[in-house]
């Protein structure tokens, strides 16, 4: 079987309709007789609802209903399920779909207004009067475990949701015997997803009254169906969940939200379709995000720069509830020890409640946190010993040829965390060559002549990708010869349909334009998981590969029996099964074979053939595939203003076999830019009462094209042995080490001043402070604090 399309830079099959403006995102869906909804949300971070008055809202012309929890029944009043329960969760708190008495974050839904259109619904929502009794608020996770801290939940004894640990080897002994021991305090704040399309939910009662279809701008329709059916105590057969075109996800759209319960309940009660679209302010307030993680860590090393052990204690802001369990903080422990061979590790992470919107993974999840901690420590050791920052990494990498490599960590089930393949040194070498690392000194001197300080930073990473258990694909040849591939995989721009089309095209001797891919519909394929953790190209791609191979074999077998020859004598060219040698016109079109197997009344199928020229596969994915790479960033700093510009950026990336270089590079570019945002721009600011002060794009900065240098990308390919494609995930590797690389470069630029940075985001005022005071900037701006969270510029 030829691989003509897989591996090639095939243009996306998704593009033409999107370019024409013919995408069908949640708000574009035609919903005849549909109504539009707006939520009434808590305006305080913690309190009790004392009284509500919706009479004015209900009286507004065009308003069909205002529903509080009790109006929608017990399902709107009981706690929602946790997507991934965990035995270490001490307080497995989730919210009820609509708050009944206590509210725990600004933005928490209290009521739903349904009207003829969103304008009227918002008018009415503004007329709903709510009387609160405020309760004490906790907003700073760093002091949430102090005995004097306010409790995020009334009646709770403390704010601890869980304490997670990761350890191997004997860290105490390692530290006791080490030549070099360095301590650091590191704080990191990430931010929101800010997909350009916000969330949205549309619920359509079935015309036959048997159930409901839930359209959601989600990354995980199968998870939504499973959890919603469980929460409503319904047969899953009554519920169909579908993701239409989705305008970006990045993690927070893989959560099961209150809106996904309330909107269908309202639709059922009214007997009409109901749609709710999130506006940007709601995205800031009520969509999950990532916030602060703070660590006190130490690293032990020997005098040659060999890293021996890392230990430390951290705290993680979970927000008011844990709908995603502890998967996010766990994903910030798994990545230790990174690409380095360590003898010992001992980490403990307290996951704490605060009165802000819950946190859950945003592109990279916890991996960027772990990477930042590890890479800052590696830089510290290098600096303490006068070693080059790239060289120390080389000395500590798991050497090539040592794979599979067991890191010392274990998964929850006791199995060993193993890196399946990789060549960390090759990535570093290639990155250094492409970045002109050896010639940097000249660039620094030239920049100084222009009045700016230029620095270079290196960060390497490892990423567990392609997690199982499966993502399904059906490959079906239709009677007209076109292929229909159905996948459970949900896409938010990654181009999965193109990958699947490429695979089918190769297997069936057709071109990708002749493959239609439909996806993310629980009514179309029985099982699925969701899009997160850089897993879908591997999981769904493997299923497409297997299913298409079965379809190919079946086509050849049927043709062989009809042509009275051996399968091996046949191949498929341009949609036609033909003999490898001999006259081409005695072949059989796939269309004909498909029609044969579709069944003709009264005529049995050929012996030994099941109906349909099709196959369904759920490729079993066991171990994760290890992606890795190195980023090298250069920044220029204006010492007068503290402005930081990223002026050069090189990525060398190993995602195994590259399935489509256009798509992989696109994922890396987007990921790096997100990482630049994390490093220099993005921070959610709250005041001490838990009010979000970041609620629009004037207050929260996303990176624009003007902030981005030309990003150079090259690849190393170490195929994964764990899937038939030899591929690894590529969705998050661009983000994972970006903040570390940029902060490393920033420190390098300001070496002379002794300015150091052990946090991100880093703002110009931090740079000025570090330059003038020659100190290490560690603290992310506290959410509880003087100045209402606004930064004060040193020197006035």
């Amino acid at each position: 079987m030829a691989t003509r399309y897989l591996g090639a830079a095939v243009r996306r099959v998704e593009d033409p309709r999107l370019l024409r403006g013919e995408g069908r995102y949640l708000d574009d869906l035609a919903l005849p007789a549909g109504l539009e909804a707006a939520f009434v949300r808590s305006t305080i971070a913690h309190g009790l609802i004392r009284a509500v008055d919706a009479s004015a809202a209900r009286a507004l012309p065009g308003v069909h209903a205002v529903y509080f929890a009790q109006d929608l029944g017990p399902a709107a009043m009981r706690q929602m399920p946790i997507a991934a329960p965990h035995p270490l969760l001490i307080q497995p708190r989730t919210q009820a779909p609509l708050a009944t008495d206590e509210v725990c974050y600004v933005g928490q839904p209290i009521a739903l207004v349904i009207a003829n259109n969103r304008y009227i619904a918002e008018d009415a929502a503004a007329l709903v009067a709510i009387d609160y009794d405020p309760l004490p608020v906790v907003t700073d996770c760093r002091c949430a475990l102090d005995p004097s801290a306010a409790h995020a939940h009334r009646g709770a004894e403390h704010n601890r949701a869980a304490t997670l640990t990761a350890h191997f080897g004997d860290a105490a002994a390692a530290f006791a015997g080490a030549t070099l021991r360095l301590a650091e305090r590191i704080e990191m704040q990430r931010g929101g997803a800010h997909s350009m399309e916000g969330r949205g939910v549309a619920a359509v009662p079935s015309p036959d009254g048997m159930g409901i279809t839930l359209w959601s701008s989600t990354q995980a329709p199968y998870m939504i169906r499973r959890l919603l059916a469980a929460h409503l105590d319904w047969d899953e057969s009554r519920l169909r969940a579908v993701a239409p075109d989705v305008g970006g996800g990045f993690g927070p759209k893989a959560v099961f939200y209150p809106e996904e319960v309330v909107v269908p309940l309202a639709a059922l009660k009214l007997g009409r379709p109901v749609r709710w679209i999130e506006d940007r302010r709601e995205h800031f307030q009520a969509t999950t995000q990532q916030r602060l993680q703070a660590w006190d860590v130490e690293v032990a090393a020997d005098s040659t720069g060999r890293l021996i052990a890392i230990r430390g204690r951290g705290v993680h802001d979970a927000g008011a509830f844990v709908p995603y369990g502890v998967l996010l903080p766990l994903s910030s422990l798994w990545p230790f020890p990174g690409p380095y061979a360590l003898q010992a590790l001992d980490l403990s992470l307290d996951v704490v409640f605060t009165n802000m919107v819950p946190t859950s993974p945003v592109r990279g999840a916890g991996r960027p946190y772990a990477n930042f901690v590890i890479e800052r420590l590696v830089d510290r050791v290098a600096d303490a010993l006068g070693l080059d920052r790239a060289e120390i990494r080389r000395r500590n990498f798991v050497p090539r040829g040592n794979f599979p490599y067991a890191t010392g960590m274990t998964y929850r089930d006791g199995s060993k965390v193993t890196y399946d393949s990789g060549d960390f040194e090759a990535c570093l070498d290639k990155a250094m060559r492409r970045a002109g690392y050896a010639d940097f000194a000249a660039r620094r001197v030239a920049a100084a002549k222009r009045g700016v300080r230029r620095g270079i930073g290196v960060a390497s990473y490892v990423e567990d990708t392609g997690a199982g258990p499966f993502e399904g694909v059906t490959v079906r040849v239709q009677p007209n010869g076109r292929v229909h591939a159905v996948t459970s995989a949900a896409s938010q721009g990654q181009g999965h349909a193109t990958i699947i089309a490429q695979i089918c095209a190769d297997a069936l001797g057709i071109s990708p334009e002749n493959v239609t891919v439909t996806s993310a519909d629980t009514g179309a394929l029985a099982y699925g998981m969701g899009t997160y953790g850089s897993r879908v190209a591997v999981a769904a791609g493997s299923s497409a590969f297997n299913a298409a191979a079965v379809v190919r074999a079946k086509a050849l077998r049927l043709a062989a029996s009809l042509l009275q020859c051996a399968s091996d004598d046949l191949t498929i060219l341009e949609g036609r099964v033909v003999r490898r040698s001999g006259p081409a016109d005695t072949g059989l079109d796939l269309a004909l074979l498909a029609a044969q197997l579709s069944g003709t009344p009264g005529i049995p199928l050929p012996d030994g053939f099941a109906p349909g020229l099709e196959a369904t596969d759920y490729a079993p994915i066991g171990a994760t595939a290890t992606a890795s790479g190195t980023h090298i960033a250069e920044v220029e700093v204006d010492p007068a203003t503290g402005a930081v510009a990223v002026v050069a950026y090189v990525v060398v990336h190993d995602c195994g076999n590259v399935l489509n270089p256009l798509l992989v590079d696109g994922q890396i570019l987007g990921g790096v830019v997100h990482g630049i945002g994390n490093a220099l721009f993005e921070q959610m600011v709250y005041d001490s009462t838990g009010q979000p002060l970041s609620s629009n794009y004037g207050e929260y900065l996303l990176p624009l094209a003007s902030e981005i240098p030309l990003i150079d990308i090259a690849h190393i390919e170490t195929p994964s042995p764990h899937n038939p494609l030899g591929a690894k995930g590529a969705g998050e590797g661009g983000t994972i080490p970006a903040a570390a690389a940029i902060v490393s470069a920033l420190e390098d630029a300001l070496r002379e001043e002794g300015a150091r940075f052990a946090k991100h985001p880093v703002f110009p005022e931090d740079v000025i402070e570090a330059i003038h005071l020659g100190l290490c900037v560690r603290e992310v701006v506290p959410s509880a604090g003087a100045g209402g969270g606004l930064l004060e510029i040193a020197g006035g």
Partner: protein
Amino acid sequence: MSEPHAIALSVNGRAVDAKVEPRRLLADFLRRDLNLTGTHIGCEHGVCGACTILLDGTPARSCLMFAVQADGCEIVTVEGLAGENGNLSSLQQAFSEHHALQCGFCTPGVLISLTSLLDASPDPDEATIRDVVSGHICRCTGYQAMIHAARAVAGRDACGRS
């Protein structure tokens, strides 16, 4: 409750007569009343640029305008960029060649801004293109491919349309 106003405008070359509430945003009018859902709403405060359309030949944020303000104007939306025969414009094709779109949500606005740029100045340099693209927020692509796509068209033909 305000009385609807009568407006008459041209959208993608077609004459449109409508009655709209004074407070109805142009973006909502295009999307809901004219069923032209290609123009997207990303922020409703004029920053992200997803809602960008051409208003009498100039890029404008349709989320920051009322439909009544478009009375007597010529509007071009993303649906009006392809040729008469439905062929994608040179810029649209270049976007696909260079993988300048992923989720596609910000894309219509970017296409409008870059089409306007290429119409006005047939051979803009990279810095000029980057400046225009920086009027849009994209969370997926990292912008680089959009700039390459526009540069490729600039090198090729004058107006970016087929």
